[in-house]
């Protein structure tokens, strides 16, 4: 299988353009849906998507963040204890459509935890998932409604995403492989 490499700033920008367009095609003008980024990687992705949706429709969707630390299923697996991030949902979730946003979709466990957080805050009408990169290796029955780029990776690879909150020429996505170095 050919190995897909990462993305440079231009490719990241184009991918975000396409994701924003797909979100608007499905959900329309953001009057009753909001973007919620998963702390920390999903936060800049959701802000950058909100920028694009605002340019295209004239309306900026409300944005929030969810921190999943307290809802993780791997707190007891001997990892360094994660620093608590901030869950900030400055709107009522009940009855809204929510687009959950993350940078990388991998095992699906983060998304599972994020859904639990959302449901402790309210009962959204629906939750969609948008990700910049899908790298495969799911461990739960979860898939993205809006997926930027599929990357073929080994399970042991590490996908690094560097994304600022506004357009930046330094943005990139890189795949680090312990056996083969940076692809």
């Amino acid at each position: 299988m050919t190995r897909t490499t990462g993305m440079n700033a231009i490719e990241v920008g184009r991918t975000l353009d396409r994701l924003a367009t797909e979100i608007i095609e499905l959900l329309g003008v953001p009057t009753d849906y909001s973007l919620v980024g998963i702390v920390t990687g999903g936060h800049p992705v959701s802000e950058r998507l909100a920028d694009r949706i605002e340019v295209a429709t004239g309306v900026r969707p409300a944005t929030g963040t969810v921190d999943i630390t307290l809802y993780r299923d791997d707190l007891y697996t001997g990892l360094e204890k994660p620093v608590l991030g901030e869950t900030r949902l400055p709107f009522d979730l009940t009855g809204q459509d929510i687009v959950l946003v993350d940078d990388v979709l991998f095992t699906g466990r983060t998304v599972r935890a994020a859904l639990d957080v959302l449901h402790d805050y309210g009962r959204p009408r629906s939750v969609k998932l948008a990700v910049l990169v899908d790298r495969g290796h799911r461990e739960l029955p979860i898939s993205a409604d809006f997926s930027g780029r599929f990357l073929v990776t080994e399970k042991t690879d590490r996908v690094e995403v560097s994304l600022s909150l506004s357009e930046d020429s330094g943005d990139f996505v890189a795949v680090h492989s312990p056996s083969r170095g940076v692809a």
Partner: protein
Amino acid sequence: MKGKDLLGLRGLPKAEIVEILDTADRFRKVSERRIKKVPTLRGRTVVTLFMENSTRTRLSFDLAAKRLSADTLSFSASSSATKKGETLMDTARNIDAMKPDAIIIRHSAGGSAHMLAAAFPWAVINAGDGINEHPSQALLDMLTMRDHLGSLEGKTVAIVGDVFHSRVARSNIFGLTTMGAKVLVAGPGTMCPPSMAHLGVEVRHTIDDVVEEADVVMMLRIQRERLRPGMMSSVNEYSHFYGLDMDRLRRASPSTLVMHPGPINRGVEMSPEVADGEQSVILEQVTNGVAVRMALLYLLVGGESAGGKSDEA
């Protein structure tokens, strides 16, 4: 936090105090939600073992554990077998046999938490051992101060009353000096002996002497259960010389905070107008107590057992 337990603030590095306060800051949000509970400690068991009377500290720990979804068990002096002659170690061995993950202990003997921590594998949190330390109270006090003062570095905190018999005062002295604050203590010579200076504080003997300089005035409760004859002539005299009333508080800056670890003897160490006044942050202390105890349980019990692998995304 690096250790398995929290026994006191003496010697606890600044970085760990900051970690606890920052974590507590985030946990406050959980208590403001409609569903005030997160699944973090699901399936874990937290035991509160209170061999001295306590209401607020035990309730605060109990609520903190419940908001993290842990199961809680409560032993207290009145209900336990201690009355029937069981030693603390035997009580602890019995609790150990029930496979707890953490024990919160309060005991009249200094060092009791340390004894259990050395003997058992579970996390021990000292909720007050004799006149030694009460670290979670000092942490919630420091969180409350930090909210209002921004930083503790260079700030002046006056602790007034029976400092010698106060584990709250000792934990605050250790924590605050580590954080770079200056601590003044004031009280009658029997409750505030000059030898306290070796803890790194300035010993004064009148309340007026400390109030003017202080960013925070922490009033201590007169603990009648720990006083021996001759330590104080009468409650009225004590109140006259060391009680905080509006006249005395006016000598302080209008932004000076008034704190009290509770329970208050109204009209003894503090007049009701001060306790309920604008400068009082006493009830904020109680709210912050739950957050600090959630942070401690999360940091000590939430994680780091068997080896595992990383899950990204």
